């Protein structure tokens, strides 16, 4: 028994084909949730909101106003004025308040009307919806909770050291509007195979860990010989990358990324985050910083960050192209070389129910290490075929 099994480790290929295929598999999908996730959501670089003007943000099925009060704080309120429905995001910042363009009522960052210049007193219940905010590491975050509770300390967004360090570049930032439900972007956490087929990368190690409000993807990749552009003379040869990417809550992912070059590593932090506009669209953000090093000092690191940012943007577009045409599916039919899609969605569900209804199975630790031996074998073959075809067509490898 023992010997047989050890023998198996030498190498094998999967030749199994399911034979009882007499029944057609149906795709099932419930309606997209009408509720929006509880958690911290990043609205983008905070700098953008600090120009002395109020900003309109469409999020969570509503119109919001983001404004910086005189005390420097960034505030988020429901954009519609409780007086007669004016749009506060078209108003003016006056001191610590946002003034409505319609009749000049003044609203503070806490959602309270503090003053009506033409009235002796403010009526009762002059209070509008306000979202707790966090201005951290150059980004503005907003706490969304359908139950209206304040953000618990244990789910706060971790600090990103490089973001405030001179040893790192500034954020290079991208935003795109995507017209689908945001669960699609979450699925990427576990979807190893799409990284080869959609993003032209080559994963060699893949593991997921879900615990509490954090979902992590560990992925190592190798450079694809059929995809790398012909290295210019003197250009560094990319060997592969190591990535540890975690979602902290439903929408904010920090990816600690190391690019391995011949004789050196480059450290980067990649952010991948989104906020829902409504049930069927979301704003997708990416941010990147690169560590300056001996090989990439000063401007060279900035250049690198810009190049990587372009690369990430094209990656987004590859996903978007798939999302635009695919259907929502609650019962994906998985093979053993797929990641834990169902367990990821079970984790994700915790953000869509009341805190009292979060079950242990949604938050208990789950680990899934993928067997990459068969994917690697298949993908090596595919890469070789691509190279051979190109050689036959007389193109450079």
């Amino acid at each position: 028994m023992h010997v047989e099994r050890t023998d198996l480790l030498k190498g094998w290929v999967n030749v199994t084909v399911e034979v009882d295929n007499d029944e057609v598999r149906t795709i099932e999908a419930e309606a997209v949730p009408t509720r929006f996730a509880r958690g911290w959501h990043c609205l983008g670089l905070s700098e953008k909101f600090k120009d002395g003007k109020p900003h309109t943000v469409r999020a969570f099925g509503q119109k919001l106003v983001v404004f910086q009060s005189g005390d420097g704080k960034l505030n988020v309120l429901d954009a519609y004025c409780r007086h007669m429905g004016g749009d506060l995001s078209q108003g003016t910042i006056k001191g610590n308040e946002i003034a409505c363009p319609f009749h000049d009522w003044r609203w503070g960052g806490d959602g309270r009307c503090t003053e009506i210049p033409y009235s002796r007193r403010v009526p009762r219940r002059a209070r509008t919806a306000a979202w707790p905010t966090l201005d951290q590491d150059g980004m503005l975050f907003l706490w969304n909770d359908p139950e209206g509770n304040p953000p618990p300390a244990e789910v706060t967004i971790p600090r990103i050291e490089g973001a405030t360090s001179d040893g790192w570049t500034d954020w290079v930032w991208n935003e795109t509007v995507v017209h689908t439900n945001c669960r699609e972007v979450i699925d990427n956490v576990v979807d190893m195979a799409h990284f080869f087929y959609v993003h032209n990368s080559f994963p060699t190690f893949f593991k997921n860990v879900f615990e509490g409000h954090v979902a992590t993807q560990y992925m190592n990749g190798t450079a694809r010989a059929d995809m790398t552009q012909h290295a210019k003379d003197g250009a560094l040869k990319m060997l592969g990358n190591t990535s540890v990417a975690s979602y902290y809550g439903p929408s904010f992912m920090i990816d600690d990324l190391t690019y391995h070059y011949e004789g050196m590593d480059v450290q980067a932090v990649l952010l991948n985050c989104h906020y829902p506009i409504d049930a069927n669209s979301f704003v997708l953000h990416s941010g990147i910083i690169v560590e300056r090093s001996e090989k990439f000092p000063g401007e060279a690191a900035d250049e690198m960050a810009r190049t990587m940012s372009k690369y990430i943007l094209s990656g987004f577009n590859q996903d978007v192209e798939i999302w635009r045409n695919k259907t929502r599916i609650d019962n994906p039919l998985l093979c053993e070389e797929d990641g834990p899609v169902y367990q990821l969605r079970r984790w994700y569900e915790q953000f869509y129910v009341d805190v009292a209804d979060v079950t242990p199975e949604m938050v208990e630790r789950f680990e899934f290490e993928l067997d990459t031996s068969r994917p690697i074998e298949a993908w090596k073959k595919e890469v070789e075929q691509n190279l051979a075809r190109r050689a036959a067509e007389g193109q450079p490898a």
Partner: protein
Amino acid sequence: MTIRTDNRLLDGAPMQSLACRQCGAAVQVRKASWQQTSIQWDEDATNACLERRATGGGACGDVFLGCTALSETIAQAALDGVVTVPDDLYEHEESQ
């Protein structure tokens, strides 16, 4: 949304109970092949794990990759046939 069950658990091997040889943490394990492993922890198991505690696992911004003692326990259990590995799904073939 309804939480659904992984089709691989419905059609293939189920999760099996196993206790870590080092700390006794009782977890649910499944192996789809020699290299693939799923581990479902519960709260008691998470609290029992010594390695997790040592690395401060679970703290914000500090993710715990996994317990090596538990990995070794699972690997041995697979070799001993305590955790089943569906090798019948695979056919021998010398690879390059």
